[in-house]
C-alpha cells in the first residue's frame, strides 16, 4: 500500500491532478452556463443546449452538420491544423509567464510585451523592401527584432522591481497600457503600414505576406511578395488550415527553456531567487540582475509568440488597440498555471487552450451560442488555479503531518491512528487512473 500512494505524493502528479480537476470543473461550468441559457431562452431550447455541450467537450472533432442538420463528428484536419497554429503564441506567452513565475514574479505584462513585439516585427517585415535581402534573412530579422522589443519592454517592470522594489504586477499593468497606446500611435502616425490594398478592411496593418516592392518606380505593397513562415509541408498534412513551422519553433523554444531552467547555472539562480530572494542573495546570487534577466527572458518569449503569429503571413493586426489588450497575452497566464510552470507541460496546455479557442469558433459557426463561452471556461480555470496551489499545499502538509505521526517511535497511539486514516487511501490511486485516461484522451 505504501508503494501505491507514492505516485500522488510526487509533486508533478499532484499538479497534473490539480490541473485536470480545474479543466473538468471549467468545462462543467461552461456546460451548466449553456444549459441554463438554453433552458431560459425562448429561441434556443434544450436540444441546442445539448449540441452546445457536446461541442464544448468534443468540438475539435466536429466536422460540421450533415444535410439533415445533425452534428457530424470525425477527424477535422482544418480544425487540428488551426489549433496547432493558434497554439504557437499561446505556448510562448505561457512560457513567458512560467519563467517569471519560477523567479517569483507574476508577469501580467505579457500583453504589453506581445504588442511591442507585434509593432517591431511588422515594422521590420513590412518596412524593409522584400528584394533588399533574402526573405529568410528578413524573416529572421523581424523575428529577432520582435523578441528584442519584447525583452526590452519586459525589462522595465524587472528594473523597477529589482532596484526600486515596486510591485511588478502594478508596473506590468502600467507598461501594458503604455504599450497599447504606443502601438496605436505608431501605426496611426505611419500610414504606410495601413492596409489600403484591400479596401474592404479598415484599421488593419498589411499581412506580412504583402511585401514592399519597386513597381514602376514606386514602392508598393504587393501580395505574395513578402515574408512568411515556412510551411514545411505541414499544410499538406492539415489541408485548409493556417499551420506553419511556427509551432515547431515554439516547441523547440519550450525545450530550450526547460534546459535553461533545469540544466544551467542561470536557471538554478533564477529559481533560487524565486524560492527566496534574500537567501539567494546571501548565497552570493546577484538577485537584482536575475530579476531583470528573468523579466527580459519572459518578455523575449512573449515577443517571440507575437512575431511567430504575425509573421505567418496570413494574420492581420488591428492596430487601433489602445482600448483593449490582446487576449493571447493574458491567456498565457492560464497556460502557465495549468502547466504548473513546467516548460514541457506548457506545450500541452498551450495546445489545450487553443483547442478551446477552436471549440469556441465551432460553437459560433454551428450553434446559436458563441465563442465567449470558452473564455468563461478559461477564466474559471484561472480562478481555480489561484487556489489549486493552496489545496496542493494543504494535501502535502497533511501527508507530512501523517508521515510524522507514523514515523514517530512506535507509540501505542500511533497504531490506531494510522488504522483510522487508512480507509480514504484506496480511493486515491483510482483517482489517478481515471485522470490518466482523461489525459490520454486529451492529447
Amino acid at each position, binding site marked *: 500500500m505504501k508503494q501505491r500512494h507514492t505516485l500522488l505524493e510526487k509533486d508533478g502528479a499532484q499538479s497534473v491532478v490539480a490541473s485536470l480537476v480545474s479543466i473538468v470543473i471549467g468545462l462543467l461550468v461552461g456546460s451548466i*452556463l449553456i444549459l441554463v*441559457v438554453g433552458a431560459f*431562452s425562448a429561441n*434556443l431550447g434544450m436540444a441546442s443546449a445539448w449540441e452546445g455541450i457536446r461541442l464544448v467537450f468534443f468540438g475539435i472533432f466536429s466536422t460540421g452538420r450533415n444535410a439533415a442538420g445533425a452534428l457530424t463528428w470525425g477527424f477535422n484536419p482544418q480544425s487540428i491544423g488551426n489549433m496547432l497554429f493558434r497554439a504557437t503564441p499561446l505556448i510562448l506567452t505561457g512560457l513567458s509567464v512560467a519563467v517569471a513565475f519560477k523567479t517569483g514574479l*507574476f508577469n*501580467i505584462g505579457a500583453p504589453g510585451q506581445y504588442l511591442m513585439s507585434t509593432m517591431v516585427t511588422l515594422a521590420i517585415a513590412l518596412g524593409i523592401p522584400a528584394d533588399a535581402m533574402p526573405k529568410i534573412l528578413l524573416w529572421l530579422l523581424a523575428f529577432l527584432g520582435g523578441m528584442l522589443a519584447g525583452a526590452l519592454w519586459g525589462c522595465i517592470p524587472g528594473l*523597477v522591481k529589482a532596484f*526600486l*522594489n*515596486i510591485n511588478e*504586477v*502594478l*508596473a506590468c*499593468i*502600467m*507598461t*501594458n*497600457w*503604455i504599450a*497599447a*497606446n*504606443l502601438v*496605436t*500611435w505608431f501605426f*496611426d*502616425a505611419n500610414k504606410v503600414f495601413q492596409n489600403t490594398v484591400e479596401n474592404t478592411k479598415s484599421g488593419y496593418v498589411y499581412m506580412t505576406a504583402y511585401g514592399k516592392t519597386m513597381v514602376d518606380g514606386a514602392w508598393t505593397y504587393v501580395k505574395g511578395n513578402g515574408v512568411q513562415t515556412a510551411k514545411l509541408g505541414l499544410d499538406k498534412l492539415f489541408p485548409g488550415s493556417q499551420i506553419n513551422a511556427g509551432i515547431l519553433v515554439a516547441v523547440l523554444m519550450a525545450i530550450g527553456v526547460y534546459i535553461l531552467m533545469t540544466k544551467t547555472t542561470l536557471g538554478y539562480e533564477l529559481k533560487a531567487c524565486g524560492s527566496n530572494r534574500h537567501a539567494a542573495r546571501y548565497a552570493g546570487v546577484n538577485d537584482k540582475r536575475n530579476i531583470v534577466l528573468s523579466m527580459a527572458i519572459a518578455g523575449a518569449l512573449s515577443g517571440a509568440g507575437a512575431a511567430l503569429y504575425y509573421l505567418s503571413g496570413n494574420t492581420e493586426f488591428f492596430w487601433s488597440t*489602445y*482600448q*483593449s*489588450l490582446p487576449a493571447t497575452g*493574458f491567456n498565457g*497566464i*492560464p497556460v502557465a*498555471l495549468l502547466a504548473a510552470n513546467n516548460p514541457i507541460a506548457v506545450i500541452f496546455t498551450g495546445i489545450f487552450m487553443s483547442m478551446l479557442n477552436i471549440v469556441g469558433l465551432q460553437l459560433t459557426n454551428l450553434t*446559436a*451560442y*458563441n465563442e*465567449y*463561452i*470558452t*473564455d*468563461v471556461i*478559461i*477564466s*474559471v480555470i*484561472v*480562478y481555480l*488555479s*489561484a*487556489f489549486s*496551489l*493552496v*489545496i496542493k499545499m494543504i494535501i502535502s502538509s497533511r501527508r507530512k503531518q501523517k508521515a510524522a505521526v507514523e514515523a514517530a517511535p512506535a507509540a501505542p497511539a500511533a497504531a490506531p491512528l494510522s488504522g483510522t486514516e487508512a480507509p480514504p487511501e484506496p480511493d486515491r490511486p483510482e483517482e489517478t487512473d481515471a485522470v490518466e485516461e482523461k489525459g490520454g484522451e486529451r492529447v
Partner: protein
Amino acid sequence: MTFLIQQTLLYAVPLMIVALAGVFAERSGIINLALEGIMIFGAFVGVLFVRLMQGNPAIMGAFSAKQWVTLQGLELLAMLVAAVFGALFSLLLSFASVNLRADQTIGGTALNLMAPALVLFLVRIISNQNTLQMASGDAASWFMIKKTTLGFDRKADLGFLGNTLLHQVYLATYICIILFVVLSILLYKTKFGLRLRSCGENPQAADSLGINVYKMRYAGTTISGALAGMGGFVYALTTANCASTGDVAGFGFLALAVMIFGNWKPGNIAGAALIFGLFKCVAASYPSIDINGDGVYLLAELGISSHLYRMLPYIITLVVLAFTSKKSRAPKAEGIPYDKGQR
C-alpha cells in the same frame, strides 16, 4: 470651459469612485485587481436592468409624459442594482482570497477574464451583436438633466456655475461625489473604518484585539465590489451612451493607477481622478476644446497627439511609483492571506 469641466467630471467621477473601491479592498488587506472586471459586470447588469425596465409600459409612459422624477428614480435603481451585482461578483474574489487563502493577484486576474467573457456571451445571445444598448432612446434623452428638466426656459442663462453644474449633467455624477465623501468619512472617522484599516496594516494585532479579520476583509471587498459595479454602470451611462460592450476601455486599471497616484488617500484620489479625467477628456476631444472661449483652439494648436494624453496617466503613475516607493502609504499587509496560526 464649461464643456471642459463637464467632460472632465464625466470621466473623473467613475474613476474616483472605482479608485475608492480599490482603497476599501486594499485597506482591508485584499488587492483588488478585479476592478476592471467588476466594472464590466456592473455596467452590463445596469444596462440590462434599464433595458428590461423599458419593456414595462409604465416606464415608457413616464418617458413620454416626461415624468423626470420617475426616470431619475430608474437611474438610481439601476445604479443600485449594478452595485448589488458588483458586490455579489466580488464575493468570488473574497471567497478565494479570504477563505481559501488563494493568490489574490491571480484571483483578480481570473475575474478580469471572466467578466468580459460572461458579459459578451450573454450580450451576444440577448442582442445578436456585441453591444447591448437600451431598448429604445438614448442615455441623453432618458437620463440627462437639462435646463428644461429643472423647469427653466430653454434659453435661460443660469450663469457660469448654473450652466456648468445644472445643464446637461447626470444625477449619477453627483450621487457618486456624495457617496465618495460619505464613504471616505466612514473609512477614516468611524470605528468600523479604523477596524477595517487595521486589518490591512497588521491583521494579527487586529485579531488579538477581537476584530474578526475575515469578516472585515469580506466587508472591505464587498464594499469595493459594490462601488466598482456602480462605477461601471455610471461609466457606461455617462460616457458610453448606456451601452454594454464587454469592456470599459481600461478604466478599472486606470482607477488602480489613480489609487496609487493618490497614495491610497481619498483627498489625493479625488485630485488624481480629476487630473486623469482631464487627460482622458483632452485625449477624447482636444481639437474641439476652446478653453477660455476666445475662438482659439489652444490644445489643437499645440499639436500633441491624443495618444500621448491617453498614455500620460500610466506613465505618470509609473514615475510616481518609482519616486515614492520608499514612502508609499500602501497598506502593509495587502496581498498577504491572513492565517490565524501565523505569528
